[in-house]
């Protein structure tokens, strides 16, 4: 058998943890090889080893049958290995072109020459349908386009072995489809792809084989055609996983959120743009309302205006029938609103605080946790211990673990625990399962439904169609800042939803 990449017996330790424990991974030439595993299973670490970012303690790497030493990205590049990282590695104030040529610039008398590079990029982008604007700044382009730039970076370097670390986590369904087509084209050209994802249907759709890791250990490799989703997920988590969220029908009660003619404008270089255009809707207690839509259609702005993180340009917001349009964040948070933010590192957590401090981030000022301005430590710790137990938040040192050292999934659980434990009337949850493994996703979905059943109104913003379809009781679709449709998940088809999201269909669709 002809393996283009063989990683044999790779062991990589971090202080306190063995991230990769004697892992073997063999990739055939011309295949799409998926790598599956829970959060923290060691996928990124293994790929970083292959790419030369980490040096393994044990194990050897063979490329095309020859043992090689990969001491850094330069070596990896020389061997034809390229990598798109989980978190993009793009310089935000460089142009697309500059990002692509960085590190392999052509120079004449010390001056960077770009003509040849531009030509090559245009050719590549046409060949693989990776459309980019060479002179656009990274900060000005969409995530999808950034993804394309990352792939172009590899193609520009004539890499044959492409590592894609969770490339779909940030893409819209359409973009995911495009990406998959591109991947298929690439393997047709003879390239080999290592593809990391948490989404089993993506693996089903494109991958030839799939290797599974669990807690740093190699579990096995399967042919995707022969293995169904259940098998793979069981390999990954070590138990059976439910994909459909078991829930009863919603019993909507009184209105908890009412939005009237909300407008958010942005002023950029003089001209104003309406990011949220005259949006009105309401959410009742005891129901989950999803806002579906492709990233960048005003969902983030809408939520930020609702929660108070940014200011709005017009309209009114009522929570529990009380107008809170002009109230500050603290007021809203103490009057029924909970918020699971889109970016857990930027907004959700103070990473340098301990878990217990993060768990009272919204409540430290309540009489329960402070007396005359002095924090009541024991109560805070007790509170944390309860939530850790209830929500199964795993961490090294319990309540005093620094949030920074927790895994993404557990960080997210901590946020959810904090927000739900406040028994909110309204929960605004944005992308609550982004980047999490199926086990964690299952858990979070259950919690959302539980919250609903206990009488909380949930506004869920998600770019994931599966999530939207599975979890919500009502779907609002946003397109270019407007709500273009209200749909019932029980009757609407995914395809139709996609049409709304793409802006090609509008209008109500009430059929209850």
């Amino acid at each position, binding site marked *: 058998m002809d393996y283009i990449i063989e990683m044999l017996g790779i062991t990589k330790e*971090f202080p306190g943890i063995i991230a990769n424990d004697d892992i073997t991974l063999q990739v055939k030439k011309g295949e799409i090889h998926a790598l599956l595993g829970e959060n923290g299973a060691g996928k*990124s670490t293994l790929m970083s080893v292959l*790419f030369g*970012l*980490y040096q393994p303690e044990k194990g050897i790497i063979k490329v095309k049958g020859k043992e090689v030493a990969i001491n*850094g*990205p*330069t070596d990896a*590049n020389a061997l034809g290995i390229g*990598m798109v*990282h*989980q*978190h993009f*590695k*793009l*310089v*935000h*104030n*460089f142009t697309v072109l*500059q*990002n692509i040529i*960085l*590190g*392999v*610039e052509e*120079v004449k008398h*010390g*001056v*960077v020459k770009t003509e040849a590079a531009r030509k090559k990029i245009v050719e590549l982008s046409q060949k693989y349908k990776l459309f980019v604007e060479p002179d656009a700044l990274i900060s000005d382009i969409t995530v999808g386009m950034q993804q394309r730039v990352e792939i172009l*970076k590899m193609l520009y370097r004539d890499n044959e072995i492409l590592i894609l670390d969770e490339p779909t986590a940030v893409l819209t369904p359409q973009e995911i489809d495009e990406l998959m087509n591109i991947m298929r084209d690439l393997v047709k050209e003879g390239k080999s792809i290592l593809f990391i994802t948490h989404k089993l249907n993506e693996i089903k759709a494109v991958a030839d084989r799939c290797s599974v890791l669990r807690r740093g250990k190699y579990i096995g490799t399967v042919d995707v055609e022969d293995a169904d989703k259940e098998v793979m997920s069981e390999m990954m988590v070590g138990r059976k996983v439910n994909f459909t969220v078991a829930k009863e029908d919603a019993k909507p009660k009184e209105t908890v959120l009412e939005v009237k003619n909300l407008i958010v404008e942005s002023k950029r270089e003089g001209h104003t743009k309406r990011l949220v255009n005259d949006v009105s809707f309401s959410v009742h207690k005891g129901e989950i309302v999803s806002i579906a839509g492709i990233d960048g259609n005003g969902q983030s702005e809408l939520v930020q205006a609702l929660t108070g993180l940014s200011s709005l340009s017009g309209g009114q917001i009522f929570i529990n029938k009380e107008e809170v349009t002009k109230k500050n964040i603290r007021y809203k948070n103490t009057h029924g609103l909970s918020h699971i933010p889109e970016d857990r590192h930027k907004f959700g957590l103070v990473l340098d605080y301990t878990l217990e401090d993060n768990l009272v981030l919204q409540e430290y000022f309540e009489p329960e946790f402070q007396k005359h301005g002095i924090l009541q430590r024991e109560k805070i710790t007790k509170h944390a211990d309860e939530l850790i137990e209830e929500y199964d938040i795993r961490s090294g040192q319990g309540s005093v673990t620094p949030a920074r050292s927790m895994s993404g999934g557990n960080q997210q659980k901590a946020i959810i625990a904090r927000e739900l434990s406040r028994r909110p009337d309204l929960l605004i949850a944005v992308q609550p399962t982004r980047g999490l493994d199926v086990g964690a996703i299952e858990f979070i979905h259950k919690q959302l439904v539980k919250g609903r059943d206990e009488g909380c109104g949930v506004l869920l913003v998600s770019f994931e169609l599966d999530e939207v379809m599975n979890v919500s009781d009502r779907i609002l679709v946003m397109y270019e800042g407007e709500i273009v449709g209200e749909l019932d998940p029980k009757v609407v088809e995914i395809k139709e939803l996609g049409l709304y999201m793409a802006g090609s269909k509008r209008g109500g669709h009430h059929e209850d």
Partner: protein
Amino acid sequence: MNTVYFLVQQTMLFTIPLLIVALGGMFSERSGVVNIALEGIMTMGAFTSILFVKFTEGFMSGQLQLLLAIIVAGATGMLFSMLHAFASINMKADQTISGTALNMFAPAFAIFVARQVQANHVQQIDFENTFRIVKVPGLSSIPFIGKLFFSNVYLTTYIGFAILIISAFVLYKTRFGLRLRACGEHPQAADSLGINVYKIRYSGVMISGMLGGIGGLVFILPISTNFNATVSGYGFLALAVLIFGQWKPARILTAALFFGFMNTIAAAYSGIPFLASMHIPSYFYKMVPYIATLIVLTFTSKKSQAPKASGIPYDKGMR
């Protein structure tokens, strides 16, 4: 008219050292290392080069001596800045701490050594200023321009502008510049593309050391006839110019000119009949550059463009 010539010439005395040092700071920060040690680096550069000037007095022509002194100053600054580079790059130290340490170290060291090597254990180093060019042959006779830029100048003024042009060129046109900027914005990205972040950052800090050292010499030479282990806070002002200039060469020039001009007015107003006749206390003029800067900042700071990764130690393993 003479007043104009005079103001321009004097402005250069303030502007050029600020410009050179701020450009140095730019290279460091753009590579991702905050260099608060500029003050100390200037002091060290001025110290060794002026010691050099003192010991070589009379052996060569003023301009040659000046050129050599610039090399000495640049080399000193570069060496000294390597301490900062080592701490902030290899040791992943907090860059403010290491910078503050160098700022403390430089004057104490300069005084200590000056006393050790000079007769009478004197800490001040006297030197003779033989460096001024009264008229640049040929060019000084060009009307207006000749008087403005080619009389009563120091070689260092031209060097300062040369450094500006070279800096802008290096930063924006060369491979090194591209990589340097990448390291200051997103070192992980640079690293993943096979760029040696540590090396680039070392280069950035060392360039800042070199320019800082030269700036120290350029600052002291025209303004005194001795050096007493201080550059009077100009290193910190250069930092202000750097921030004011938004880490960009052309804007740094503008900021340095603004500061230079304001300082000139503050110092020279009593020789300018129109201003002198207003009888405003000199303290007012002394404060003006700082107040004006504050006001300008108020309008320009909303969108700061500091290099994103500046000040954050780069750790290969970190994501």
